[in-house]
Each structure stands twice: as C-alpha cells, then as structure tokens.
C-alpha cells in the first residue's frame, strides 16, 4: 500500500526548500553589486527583481511551512530535486529580463545548463552582454558545481542532522570529513583557493595575449569558474577560440582536469598523501579512458584528413576530447565543424568520452570513473570465477583512498547507475531523431546534455523545438542529480496521487 504524503511531509519539504531559495537570493547579490559598481543600471535592476522574487518565495515558504522537525531520507531527496528546479526558474529571471534570451524557456534552459554545469546555451548576442549577467552565467556554474545545497549547508545552516541526506541527494555520496558541514566547507576552500590561482594565471595570460587588464581578469574569473566546475560557458560567443592562444588552452586543460578529480582525492593530496594520485582507481581508469578515446578520435580525425599535421590534430582533437571527458564543454572549433569536418569515428571517440565523465564527488557528470572501474573489476572477477577451479576463492580489490574488497552490492549499484545513464543518453537521442535530426548528431547532443558536458554539434539552437529543449532540461537535471533524487520525487508525486 502506498501512503499519501501528509501535511508534516509537505511542511518539512517546504521549509528546507524555502531556506535554500533564500540562499539562492543571497547569491544573486553578487552580480547585483557588480552591476552597480560597473554602472550597469538595467542589469542591476534585473538582479534586484530576481533577488526580491526569490526572497518573497523563500520567506513565504519558510513562514507557511515552519517546522523544527528534521528531514527524512525521502524528504531530503525531494528537497534537493525541487531546489534545483526552483533555482532554474528563479535564476532564469534576471537572465530573461536582460533581453538576451528569446523566451523564458530559453533563459530557463541556460539557467539549468549553468546550475547543472552543462554549458549548452541558447543565449543571443552574447558578445554585447553586461558584466553582471555574464558573471551570473558563470557564477551559477560555480554554485551548481559545488552543489546548490552545499552552498546552503556551508553558509546558512549551522547544525542539521538532515544535512547529509540532502548532500547525498545532490549526487555526493562521499564524506571527506566526518562532519558534513566541514566537508562542504572544505569543498569551498579547495574551490576558492583554485579560483584565486586560476583567475590569476588566466588573467596574466590574457594580458600577455593583448587583452585589456580589466577584461583579462574578468574573463579569467569566468573561464576558471566554467572550467573548474566543468561547466563550459564562456564570456564570448566563440568559446575558447576567442583567445587564439595555446597557453590559454593549456591552462584551461589543467583546470578542467583539476575539476574532474574527486574532492576526496584533493583532500588527501592537500594533506601530503601524493601517492594516492597514482594508486587511486579513478585516476588510473581516467588515464586509460582518455588514452583509448583519444586514440579513437585521433584515428578518426586522421582518416577525415581535416588537420594535416600531428600538432594540429592533437591540439584540436585532444582539446575537444578532454573538454568532453571532463564534462566541461569548451570548444576551439565551431559546432558545425563537428558535423561537417569530423567523421563518425572521431565523433564516436568524443561521445564515449562524454558518456564516461570524470571522478565521483567532483563537479563532473556522467557515468564516472569509479563506477567504470568497479564494473570492469566485477567483470574480471566473474571471468576469473569461470576460468579458475570451482573451489578457488576469487576476490577483487581496488584502491580508492583505502584498499576496498569488491562486494556485489557495489557492483550492482555501479551497474544500475550506468544503466540509467545509458537509458538517458538513448532517450534524448530518440527524441532528437523524432524531430528529424540524424542519429549520430542526436546521440552526440543528448549525451552532452545528460552527461552535463556542453559540447554541441549544432542541434542546440533557439530554433530547436520546445519539446527538445524540455527534454534536454530534464536530461541535465536528472544527469546532474544522478537519478535517485529524481526517482524519489517521481515516487512522491505518484504517492500523492494514488496513495491512501
């Protein structure tokens, strides 16, 4: 028998959702202040309106649903999934008011793309966008990359035993420190330290490349936020191609890889345990996966004959590949070039890289290296069981911070999430084909959306059907939250309708 959610459930969900929305309203104060300081009056007004609407919603929810109860697991998951939808709608308000998006759906598409660190964009006339709006586009990637709930946890919640339930709901199932609030704060410490270093490196490179210092450092901060949080938005319409600089590309590659690494691994390296980098299953699998997908892409590009020299082939092939593998989505080629100049083999290499992603507990999306490693270990274990004598005891272990013996439940969990991702990739591809797009392009764009990558082969455009925009929004949301919170929300809705 399914139990219908009661008023206590709704109040708990509403109260914590309200808290997170208030947190979101506070984050909008930064672009508002930036707009004011740059003398951008209308953009500042856009953010003031956004802040006011978010505060009104947040305060009303907190007032109506006031509770001192703690969250249950299901409620925590529902709060997270609803928080991401609320952030998308509220975060889209200042974007839409700017006039750079043709409809509110387009603005919501970009807001979800930003929060989910995807990078697919429907923005128009980006090259004339205000500093405030451009900053917001990148800042929502920074917020989304760490996790919207993490922001609330680390800044606004002092002590809450339900915190871990929301933390897990946001696809972060690893505690770096015993206390979840400390874990959130450590994630911020890492991110802000790298933000300072990365902005400085990119800013100086920009100045040396001939950019005006103000622009160079603003671009540096934006590009860092998009690279470290494996987002993929860029301040100019040409993405990284705008800078015409190999050094700039190299720095972004380093930042993208740093963003694709598990925060737990960051912690151990920060604590001096550098050997962990070479021993960890995730870094090993990432290295193998990048090598294999790079070979596929390079062979494809060589056969296509687009890039006559090995250096050109490597620079273009490796950059798009690492951008796809880390789930970032920066491009140094135009979307149409993927379709017109790259052959299917090269595209397949990039699609595979996008589908696999980076490390768990990082800012990347997709299947992720730990799950791939566990799946491969489980496969090896099963093969050994068949080959070795029946009485032989077969044990598989892997190193992830500590040595762990592989259990069936780990393999099952990894395979289930992998299966969910494959279904999500396929679903988006089917919808794309329904609207008349070719198979490979549909699969490319669908994988890019569901794996929160942001590379585009040209399907993502203002003119694409609204249903396809909604499909990609759903894929970005479900892919970022790694399904469980979305499934729990769906179960909650079913229980509300059919429950007794």
């Amino acid at each position: 028998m399914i139990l219908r959610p009661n008023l206590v459930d709704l109040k708990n969900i509403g109260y914590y959702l309200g808290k997170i929305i208030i947190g979101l309203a506070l984050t909008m104060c930064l672009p508002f202040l930036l707009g004011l300081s740059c003398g951008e009056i209308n953009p500042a007004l856009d953010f003031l309106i956004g802040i006011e609407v978010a505060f009104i919603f947040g305060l009303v929810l907190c007032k109506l649903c006031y509770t001192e109860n703690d969250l249950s697991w299901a409620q925590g998951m529902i709060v997270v999934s609803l928080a991401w939808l609320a952030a998308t709608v509220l975060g889209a308000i200042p974007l839409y008011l700017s006039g750079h998006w043709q409809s509110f759906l387009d603005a919501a598409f970009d807001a979800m793309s930003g929060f989910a660190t995807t990078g697919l964009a429907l923005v128009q006339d980006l090259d004339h966008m205000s500093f405030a709006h451009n900053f917001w586009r990148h800042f929502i990637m920074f917020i989304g990359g760490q996790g919207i709930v993490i922001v609330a946890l680390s800044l606004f919640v002092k002590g809450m035993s339900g915190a871990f339930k929301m933390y897990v709901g946001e696809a972060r199932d690893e505690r770096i420190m015993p206390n979840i609030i400390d874990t959130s704060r450590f994630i911020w410490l890492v991110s802000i330290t790298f933000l300072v270093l990365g902005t400085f490196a990119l800013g100086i490179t920009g100045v040396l490349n001939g950019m005006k210092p103000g622009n160079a450092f603003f671009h540096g901060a934006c590009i860092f936020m998009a690279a470290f949080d494996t987002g993929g938005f860029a301040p100019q319409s040409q993405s990284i191609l705008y800078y015409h600089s190999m050094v700039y590309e190299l720095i972004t590659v380093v930042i993208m890889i740093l963003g694709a690494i598990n925060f737990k691994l960051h912690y151990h390296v920060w604590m001096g345990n550098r050997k962990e980098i070479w021993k960890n299953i995730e870094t090993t699998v990432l290295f193998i996966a990048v090598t294999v997908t790079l070979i596929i892409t390079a062979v494809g590009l060589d056969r296509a004959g687009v890039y006559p020299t090995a250096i050109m082939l490597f620079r273009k092939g490796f950059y798009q590949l690492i951008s796809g593998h880390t789930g970032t989505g920066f491009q140094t080629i135009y979307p149409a070039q993927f379709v017109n100049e790259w052959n299917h083999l090269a595209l397949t290499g990039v699609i595979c890289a996008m589908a696999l992603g980076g490390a768990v507990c990082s800012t990347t999306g997709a299947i992720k290296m730990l799950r791939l490693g566990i799946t491969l270990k489980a496969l090896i274990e099963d093969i050994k069981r068949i080959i070795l004598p029946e009485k032989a005891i077969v044990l598989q272990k892997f190193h992830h911070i500590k040595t762990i013996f592989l259990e069936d439940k780990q393999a099952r969990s990894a395979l289930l999430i992998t299966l969910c991702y494959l279904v999500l990739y396929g679903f988006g591809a089917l919808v794309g084909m329904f609207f008349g797009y070719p198979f490979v392009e549909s699969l490319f764009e669908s994988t890019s959306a569901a794996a929160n990558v942001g590379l585009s082969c040209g399907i993502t455009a203002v003119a694409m059907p609204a249903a396809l925009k909604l499909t990609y929004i759903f894929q970005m949301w479900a892919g970022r939250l790694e399904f469980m919170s979305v499934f729990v929300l769906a179960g909650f809705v079913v229980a509300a309708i059919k429950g007794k």
Partner: protein
Amino acid sequence: MTKKVITLLFLLSAISYQLSACFAQPISSSELIRNAKSYDGKMVVYAGEVIGDVMPRGRYAWININDGNNAIGIWVSRAVAKSIFYTGSYRAKGDVVEVSGIFHRACPEHGGDLDIHAQLLRKVTSGRVLAERINIDKKNLAIILAGILCIILILRQFKPKSKK
C-alpha cells in the same frame, strides 16, 4: 603607342579585377563554416562588427568579427588594427569592417584554428558608445516587489510559538 595603351588598359583591368575581388560581396560566417573545405586557402570577403578586445601579437593582432551569426578570428597587421576604434561590448557598438583575406579552415600557422588572414581591412561604419537609459517598467516592478517584501518581513516578526 598602341602597345603602351594596350599595356595600360591591361594593367587597369587587372587592378580593377583585384579591387573587385578584394571588396566583392561579403560571405556570411555560416557559409564559411558550413562550406569551409571549398573556401579553404581562397581569398574571401567577410564583414561584421569587431567585438571584444583587439589583441596585439608582435607585428600582427587578432581581432574577432561577428556578422550576426558567428564571430571569426581575423589575423591582421598591427598597424591596420590600430584603425579600429570601437569594439563591441555591453557599452559600445563596435566598428563594422569589411575584410578581404585568405580563409583557412584549419590554419597551419595557428594550430588548426578556422581563421582569415586579412590583406585588406576597410571600415564600413564607425562604432559608438551605447548610452544606457533606465527601464521604467523594471524600476516600477522592483519598487512594487520591494513593498511586498517589506510586508512579508514585517509579518514574519510574528513568530509561531514553538511547542515545548
């Protein structure tokens, strides 16, 4: 004499052909990107607004020109780039220029970038600073929402009594 006239006519026609080739009908960025292979290594004419920064690199400079669909990188001599006064941003409408140069779908000199190496650059229209006027509707909406927010904050002072 006749020989000289013929030579002069030939030279004039050659110059006019070159000039017409240099400033022929511009090709759109979409067309250049879509059919990059057929334009590769050929002289093209491309026009649009200069956006972002003019980035000097030694004797040359990079500028990016947006024709309304895409922006394409132009490799141009630094001296010529100095004629660009306004570049497109939130605060300004950039100079609209027409460039004739060699198009590369994967430039061997610049790591495989799709670009144009400019030979001639002509300013079509000069850019300007964009004045910002306050949007009255937005201002009114912000004031109304501020009023609603104040009412909610006042009502919020009446906290429910928690059960002990």
